[in-house]
């Protein structure tokens, strides 16, 4: 910070689709920086010697270096720099909660707005995607075979890193397309599926084989992959895809969806294009989404785009405790999503055809902090009231996918059904088997899953090399 530099206090705004327009389509909301804006934003960076921003990045992207290159208009250098550490920059630049990560530690952020690191990362990745992706170097073959189970961000990152080290990697994915939550969960208007697919194709160029329609635990178990199919190591990145329901009366009425079902129909199966695409979806006039995370925001905003007249977020705490990304809460508000805070349903009411017609709710107040540090919501006795709605989406969280944990011999499983793995290595209780991402931590973030995939790749490599010796 030696040179004197004029400080620009605010981030350069990113152009977005007009809220009145965008609630009628599934196109991406945020439109991205153009070159001039990106360069101008990059010039805000102070190039701090201590690089505080880097400690906030779970995969340790060399943030000041890539930003300097953007400022110098060396976009090719910038994207290469990012990709040394991050296999999915177009995704991360869009969906990371930067306010809790890199941007939280940015020096500028102490007095002003932090550098828009996420937007710059996204700019670089989009710049490359528009030109076709640069090939990456791959080490000579080692002769080892690794199976990666699940093609979410954890599995994809692990696969990419192992392939670069010269191992033969096969990814097994249960669904018909790879990508995990990036494909079935996060909506098109936040993360265009062509962006995800382009980044995945990139992995294929590294020699990673992706087998879809392959449910591990059903067509073969992890043990069989190792004992019969000759895989030397396995990485499990099967995510937290098991939806929680509220277990309240009426929950199996028609018109009650888990967020997973709702979003899978819309994103993976493209039900928003019905009948050109065959999978149907039905939303009523007034939709209530239960929960306050990213999943709830996505479901509520999706409902609006499917034609709901009113879309409500019903959350038992207050706005301050909502775990959703800040930007998405803002976007949701702009789009006219309504919020009922300190409210939770206790019963779902159905009409004579079994369809949802309302929810009996209780009002809450905040009590003492719980183990998560957030103040616990306490129901107010006698505060029952009826909220009239005709569609309910339950977005109160997901548990780790149980299939692989249940069918793998000798795997230690935690209390919540998660796989127990050493955070420093990704090693599980079973030799040669590593795990990471949501299946270990419970539902978390894209970048944490990627970080876990990277750590596991490093120790799988060490494990294989020690086998060789």
């Amino acid at each position, binding site marked *: 910070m030696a040179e004197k530099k004029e400080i620009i206090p605010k981030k350069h705004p990113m152009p977005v689709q007009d809220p009145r327009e965008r609630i009628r389509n599934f196109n991406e909301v945020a439109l991205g920086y153009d070159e001039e804006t990106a360069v101008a934003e990059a010039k805000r960076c102070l190039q701090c010697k201590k690089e505080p921003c880097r400690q906030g990045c779970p995969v340790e992207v060399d943030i000041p270096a890539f930003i300097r290159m953007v400022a110098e208009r060396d976009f090719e250098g910038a994207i290469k720099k990012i990709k040394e550490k991050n296999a999915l920059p177009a995704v991360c630049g869009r969906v990371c909660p930067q306010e809790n990560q890199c941007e939280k530690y940015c020096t500028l952020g102490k007095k002003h707005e932090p550098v828009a690191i996420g937007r710059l990362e996204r700019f670089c990745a989009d710049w490359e995607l528009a030109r076709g992706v640069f090939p990456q170097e791959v080490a000579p073959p080692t002769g080892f075979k690794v199976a990666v189970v699940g093609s979410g961000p954890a599995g994809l990152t692990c696969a990419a890193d192992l392939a670069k080290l010269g191992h033969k990697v096969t990814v097994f994915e*249960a*669904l*018909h397309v790879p990508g995990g939550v990036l494909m079935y969960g996060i909506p098109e208007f936040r993360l265009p599926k062509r962006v995800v697919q382009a980044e995945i194709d990139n992995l294929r160029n590294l020699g990673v084989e992706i087998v*879809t*329609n*392959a*449910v591990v635990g*059903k*067509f*073969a178990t992890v043990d069989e992959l190792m004992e019969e199919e000759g895989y030397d190591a396995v990485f499990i990145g099967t995510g937290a*895809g*098991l*939806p929680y*329901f509220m*277990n309240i009366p009426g*929950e*199996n*009425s*028609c*018109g009650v*969806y*888990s967020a*997973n*079902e709702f979003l*899978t*129909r819309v994103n993976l*199966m*493209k039900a928003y*294009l*019905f*009948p*050109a*695409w*065959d*999978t*149907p979806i*039905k939303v009523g006039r007034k939709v209530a989404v239960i929960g306050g995370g990213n999943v709830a925001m996505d479901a509520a905003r999706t409902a609006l785009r499917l034609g709901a007249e009113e879309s409500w977020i019903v959350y038992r705490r207050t706005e301050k405790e909502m775990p959703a990304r800040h930007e998405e809460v803002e976007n949701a508000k702009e789009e006219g999503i309504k919020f009922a805070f300190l409210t939770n349903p206790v019963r779902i009411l159905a009409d004579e*055809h*079994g369809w949802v017609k309302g929810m009996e709710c209780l009002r809450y107040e905040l009590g003492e902090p719980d183990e998560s540090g957030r103040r616990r919501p306490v129901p107010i006795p006698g505060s029952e009231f009826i909220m009239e709605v005709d569609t309910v989406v339950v977005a109160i969280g997901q548990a780790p*996918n*149980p*299939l692989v944990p249940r069918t793998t011999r000798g795997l230690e499983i935690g209390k919540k059904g998660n796989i127990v793995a050493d955070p420093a290595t990704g090693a599980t209780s079973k030799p040669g088997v590593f795990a990471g991402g949501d299946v270990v931590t419970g539902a978390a973030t894209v970048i944490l899953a990627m970080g876990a995939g990277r750590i596991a790749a490093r120790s799988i490599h060490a494990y294989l090399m020690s086998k060789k010796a």
Partner: protein
Amino acid sequence: MFKILEKEVFSPVIKKMVVEAPRVARRCQAGQFVILRVQENGERIPLTIADFDREKGTITIVFQEVGKTTKLLGTLNAGDYILDFVGPLGTPSHIENFGTVVCVGGGVGIAPVFPIARALKEAGNYVISIIGARTKELLFWEDRMREVSDELLVTTDDGSYVRKGFVTDVLKELIEQRGKENINLVLAIGPQPMMRACCKVTGEYGIKTIVSLNSLMVDGTGMCGCCRVTVGGQTRFVCVDGPEFDGHQVDWDILARRSATFRQEEQRALELYTGQCKCGGGN
């Protein structure tokens, strides 16, 4: 892509296909199903594994054309490909020597009953099978069912073949004849009303009855809960906890209502499809 090796037309609306799917064939067991997607803009639909050949790496499916996707599937021929074909899904049937088991297959439900009846027979059970269809031309696999059964009873709703009456009528007569204490288990697969009716009959005699539920599904791997049903007062996922359940514990009303969730949309998709199809191809 999964190649169709053989196609057999049982009747204008019921077809059999043998599909090359070695990974599914290697491990599948009686009672399991697959999910398939015919083409890129298609939906995922569940179909039971009606037979399998581990050596050849093939899976046999039998389906009834009831809507857009099954009709579209029905237009494919040997040599064509199915885009996605995933399995084996669901929990295999619980097979042991129960004693005397009655296997009831209604309509296209005859196909899923077949591998279970075979496994029960191999496990040493005395297998009495009852198969039925609306009319003679909808009946199939009489010969195959006979092969895996000690006794086979056949019926048609309209009396066009063997005898007139529903499978439930035959089931009731059988129980009366043999005595409820001589029947250890009933397995019923077919349309929901038929399974429900079978459970009503066996409930009166207190005979344990297993049904294979056909709820709506999306992923079929337990991640969405679209397939959930209420069994014994608890929410269960048909695709992972089932598809087989104790029929006397199933809340049939909820199942029927949930199955009808998208009826209007299904109707619309079908009309659009058959409308388009008049210009050429189809059947």
